[in-house]
């Protein structure tokens, strides 16, 4: 098999004396949808925070397409190709829906400050392309009718979708979704699964997602990693994970 898009080797982080994640090895290959599950406090979001360099890992390497990103900062990691959503939604509350997505394209369409000030053709053509791309993304998530609404006043489900749209706007190779279905009703979740598959196929990216909704995880993930107490408990196909005794024990207790 060719080199994985994301390769995590011996990743670990300590907070003071507490080891939150230890000895984690993971791989995400092109075009895959991977699930990262585990009981509350297992360290799933901490892994995401290390991948996007919100936290600095204490040990280990993170390779994105063979390039070591462990020394980069959050902005550089995004430029290298990782975008994410957040467990507790972090939208630009006071910006309109479409401006949230446009903000995601900050590095995709470039014009200088002079272009900005003098309203040159370069500014106009770039802004037109930004508008067009943003509308395309909003259409995918059925948010185009709400484009001028303030993001903070959107219903919960729409906010989650907008976060994904914003992350996609930065043209990632790897998309990290932190509990994308949280707070959604079954019908919305069903729709979300369709959208996630559609996004993977249209943008040809790989997706790593944290989720507690087992229906969603078992349905759309091709492989699943199970985290418990910061350590890898199991990995495998949905079928293998469903029947793994260690996993059942971790979730249900003894």
């Amino acid at each position, binding site marked *: 098999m060719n080199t994985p898009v994301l390769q995590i080797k011996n990743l670990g982080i300590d907070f003071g004396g507490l080891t939150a994640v230890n000895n984690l090895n993971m791989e995400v290959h092109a075009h895959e949808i991977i699930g990262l599950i585990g009981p509350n406090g297992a360290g799933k979001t901490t892994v995401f925070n290390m991948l996007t360099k919100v936290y600095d890992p204490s040990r280990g390497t993170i390779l994105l397409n063979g390039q070591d990103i462990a020394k980069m900062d*959050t902005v550089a990691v*995004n430029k290298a190709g990782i975008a994410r959503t957040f467990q507790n939604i972090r939208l630009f*509350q*006071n910006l309109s829906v479409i401006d949230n997505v446009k903000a995601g394209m*900050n*590095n995709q369409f470039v014009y200088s400050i002079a272009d900005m000030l003098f309203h040159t053709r370069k500014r106009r053509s770039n802004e037109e392309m930004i508008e067009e791309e943003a509308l395309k993304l909003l259409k995918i998530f059925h948010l185009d009718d709400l484009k001028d609404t303030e993001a903070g006043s959107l219903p919960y489900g729409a906010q989650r979708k907008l976060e994904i749209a914003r992350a996609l706007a930065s043209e990632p190779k790897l998309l990290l979704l932190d509990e994308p279905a949280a707070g959604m009703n079954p019908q919305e979740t069903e729709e979300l699964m369709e959208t996630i598959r559609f996004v993977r196929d249209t943008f040809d990216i790989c997706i790593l997602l944290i989720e507690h909704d087992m229906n969603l995880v078992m349905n759309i993930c091709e492989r699943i990693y199970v985290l418990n107490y910061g350590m890898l408990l199991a990995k495998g196909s949905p079928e293998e994970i469903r029947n793994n005794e260690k996993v059942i024990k971790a979730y249900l207790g003894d």
Partner: protein
Amino acid sequence: MKTIINELLHHRNRSRMLSFALIIGSYLIIEFLMHSIRISRLFTSMLVPCCCYIILALSLNLVVGFSGELSLGHAGFMAVGAFTAIIVSGLSAKMIPDPVIRLFISVLSGSILSGLTGLLISVPVLKLSGDYLAIVTLAFGQIIKSLITNIYLGFDSNGLQLSFVTNELNLEQGKMLLSGPMGATDTAKISNFSSGALLIVITLFVIYSLIDSKYGRAIMAARDDRIAAESIGIDILRSKTLAFVASSILAGAAGALYALNYSTLQPAKFDFNTSILALVYVVFGGLGNINGTIIATTVLYVLPELLRSLQDYRMLIYAIVLIIVMQLGSSVRLKRSMEKLKNRFSKKGVIR
């Protein structure tokens, strides 16, 4: 054609056009009144300073409202612009006799130097955030004022002479440009209402160009959520620096225009009170609200002057008005009824 009309009626562009209409409309009306009927000196003398304070408040709103950082030292940038303009205007008086060109060059150099000062200050300031940032901007505002208070600058046939301790410069029939705490005296008054109105229009154009661009979106994204902004590749420091420098350039222009409206000007004019005054205008008009800032500044600047006949009670009334409006402005109930009113209008409106 239809798309152009729709574009113009879009609520965002409507508020943009309203700002320009507000300024140009008031300018035309006031100019007309000045030429048709006799208007008291009290009123005409308020025009240029009012323009300056509008520009200052707009520039401060860029930092406080759009970038979300509290600056308490904006009078410092105004001071840099003001005294640079006085020096440039004084030095070039003989070379450039035309007051309009001289005003243009003075304001331009005032805003450039103020922008450079802003860039320099932004390096230590923007490493901080929140209250700490505000306190450091306050300190820098005071440093700039103190620095100018101690500059003695004169020029004669031998060229420029500068001293930081005494005003006993050996000038041979020369002219003092700055004399310490006394500031500038005998400055040529070359500002006028037209230039003030024009400068507001330019300020509006700059601010709207910025906030409607990718740079503006980055600034506002960094304000709303730092971590999320970084996660989509927005360089927080760069965005905040841009807002801070743009703001200091505009504040410098305001100071330059202000300085050239008076024959004498002391550095003490640009103290902490002026910074706070500008902040009051911004908060009163609404953070990130351009039209609100323009109206609030005008009302709050004119009000104390109109109340002058009430003498001792004037500041009391001014304070009470401030408190009442701030209370009303943050009232949830009032906001809700305004929202209802707005919805009723927009239902009838063309677009939504």
